[in-house]
């Protein structure tokens, strides 16, 4: 290994990178675009869902109930006096997510202790869209009615439970989606650019015939490889810097843990992605294939890593695949460090699988890379 040759390679890479303005702009532009798009767009706790009321009992209790629904923020009444047929139609057309039917004599039956029924029909085609609103409803109705059920009626408002359940929502008490999404995006952005750039970069040299020329010089394959990927490590850190600043300035995502531990995790994660890029480049014949392979790897990294959907909700086999993906571990690291203030003790169980991943994939990649040279 010669530092001089390595430096020659890196210098050449930087020169090419500087000349390829579009790629360079993309590498800084992609994080910004994705953060703006997904940071503002994705919300896993949707509010102000359209609600239609079918009311057969106009009383003060009903009025209070409707008021409470609106105050909760989850329900937005778009029609407060529809008939059953219109309401069903709106639900089918997707014009409303909820239809709440208040039966005739609801108030009277309640006071008589006749256990009247309230009917909430929800468009549960997308479970995530309506889940939180539905979950909030029983508590909501209970507390709304409690206001009216005072004095002689107070016996009706007595809670059925004889104990209190306390819930502490830790790390993100307000359930702000961005706190989860924005750190996660760091993993997705790094996966995308690091894999694609190395895979394309090395494949381009082979495809354009410059690799043969390179290898006829005294430069060694390992020097070519390291020289080619080193600049991308720097770019990876630029992306991390962009992501972190935007997380702070635009989304106010807390950062409780150690900054240095995060930088270390980023380093390990970037290495993991670069080894994938190298392996891809040594198993494909041209840049188009390299691109396709990169996407083939990118999709599970988004869908099965716990970035988009809860990891615990996946079946066992999918979790096993997820556990192999570097992004899964990186997401746990970055969310843990930023939101929970996790330290070395909590971090190493994720750094270890990442390191094993690097060793295994590096081994495969180098083996294949040597073969392609022959």
């Amino acid at each position, binding site marked *: 290994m*010669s530092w*001089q*040759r390595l*430096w*020659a*390679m890196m*210098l*050449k890479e930087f*020169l*090419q990178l500087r*000349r*390829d303005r579009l790629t360079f702009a993309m590498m800084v532009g992609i994080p910004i675009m994705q953060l703006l798009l997904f940071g503002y767009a994705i919300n896993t706790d949707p509010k102000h869902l359209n609600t239609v009321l079918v009311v057969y009992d106009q009383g003060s209790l009903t009025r209070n109930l409707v008021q409470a629904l609106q105050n909760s923020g989850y329900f937005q009444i778009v029609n407060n006096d529809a008939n059953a047929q219109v309401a069903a139609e709106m639900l089918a057309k997707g014009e409303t997510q909820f239809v709440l039917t208040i039966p005739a004599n609801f108030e009277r039956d309640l006071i008589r202790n006749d256990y009247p029924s309230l009917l909430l029909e929800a468009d549960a085609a997308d479970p995530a869209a309506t889940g939180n609103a539905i979950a909030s409803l029983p508590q909501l109705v209970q507390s709304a009615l409690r206001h009216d059920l005072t004095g002689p009626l107070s016996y009706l408002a007595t809670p059925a439970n004889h104990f209190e359940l306390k819930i502490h929502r830790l790390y993100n008490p307000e359930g702000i989606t961005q706190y989860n999404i924005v750190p996660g995006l760091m993993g997705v952005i790094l996966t995308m650019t690091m894999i694609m750039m190395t895979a394309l970069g090395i494949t381009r040299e082979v495809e*354009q*015939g*410059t690799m*043969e*020329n*390179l*290898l*006829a*010089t*005294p*430069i*060694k394959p390992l020097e070519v490889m390291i020289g080619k990927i080193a600049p991308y490590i720097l770019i990876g850190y630029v992306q991390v810097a962009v992501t972190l600043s935007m997380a702070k300035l635009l989304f106010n995502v807390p950062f409780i843990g150690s900054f240095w531990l995060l930088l270390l995790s980023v380093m390990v994660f970037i290495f993991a992605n670069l080894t994938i890029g190298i392996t891809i480049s040594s198993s494909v014949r041209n840049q188009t294939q390299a691109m396709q392979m990169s996407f083939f790897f990118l999709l599970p990294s988004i869908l099965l890593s716990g970035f988009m959907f809860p990891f615990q909700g996946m079946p066992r086999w999918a979790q096993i695949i997820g556990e192999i993906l570097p992004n899964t571990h990186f997401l746990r690291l970055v969310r843990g460090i930023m939101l929970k203030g996790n330290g070395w003790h909590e971090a190493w169980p994720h750094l270890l699988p990442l390191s094993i991943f690097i060793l295994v994939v590096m081994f495969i990649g180098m083996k294949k890379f040597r073969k392609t040279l*022959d």
Partner: protein
Amino acid sequence: MTPPSDYAIEVENLTKRFGDKVVVDHLSMQVRKGEIYGFLGPNGSGKTTSIRMMCGLLTPDGGSGQTLGLDIFLQAAQIKREVGYMTQRFGLYSDLTIRENLDFVARVYAMDQRKQRIDAALERLGLTARQKQLAGSLSGGWKQRLALAAALLHQPKLLLLDEPTAGVDPQARRDFWEQIHQLAAAGITILVSTHYMDEAERCHRLSYIAYGRLLATGTPQELIEHSGLHTWTVSGAAMAELSKQLLALPAVDMHTQFGNSLHISGKDPQALSQALQPFQANNPNYQWSEGQPSLEDVFIYLMQQATDNFQPTGKA
């Protein structure tokens, strides 16, 4: 330490397989120091693979050899430092400037006095004024000159050129060969692979390979003399009909068609003369002359023999 040899390249029974395909099959050849050695053969005959083995880029599967006194199996890294190799495709970076490309090569070879050397190389090339131009924007001829300059930057004793003049215009080709001869005169050994017969004639010695095997070797004149071919040239108008008739003759082993003339060659001079006799007598419209085959005739003939002898689909 191996004793100093008269040969810049000396390989014996060099063999390379890709999968179960034998690309180079027991190739033995010697390139003398200071000569221009031509390496000829059809596409896919194993020229590039042989060159790559000789410059330490590929490890042979069998045989033995030395390049500049260095073992091609064990001292590949040293060979790379001593040899200049110009690949078939333009191997420099199109998105770097001319100067940046040369600077990169100079750094890779860990050269001292980089600036002076590159300045000198640019001066020699006549590209000093255009040194900031991107290499990709150069024409074919200029790209080739730049690639040669890059291959020569570290002052190699041996230059391996893989089809250097493919896609280059005639004037640039002439200039290029001019330069090759100057380099040879300065003591650099040159191995050059080519398709062009006029280029083959500019070499001191030649080898012809097909299907990975060496078919013939020698000076251009030796190759012509040893081919055992006798050739008649016939010229005149309306050659098509005549050529059809001549080809049917058993004594004619091969022919080469030119615009207004035809080369008729055969192994047996007497049989050939006899067979051609009736045509020569009856047709005053055609001019006949007996002579030597051209290099092209010889190679086409060698190629035909090779096809008969060891084409994989044949008897094998």
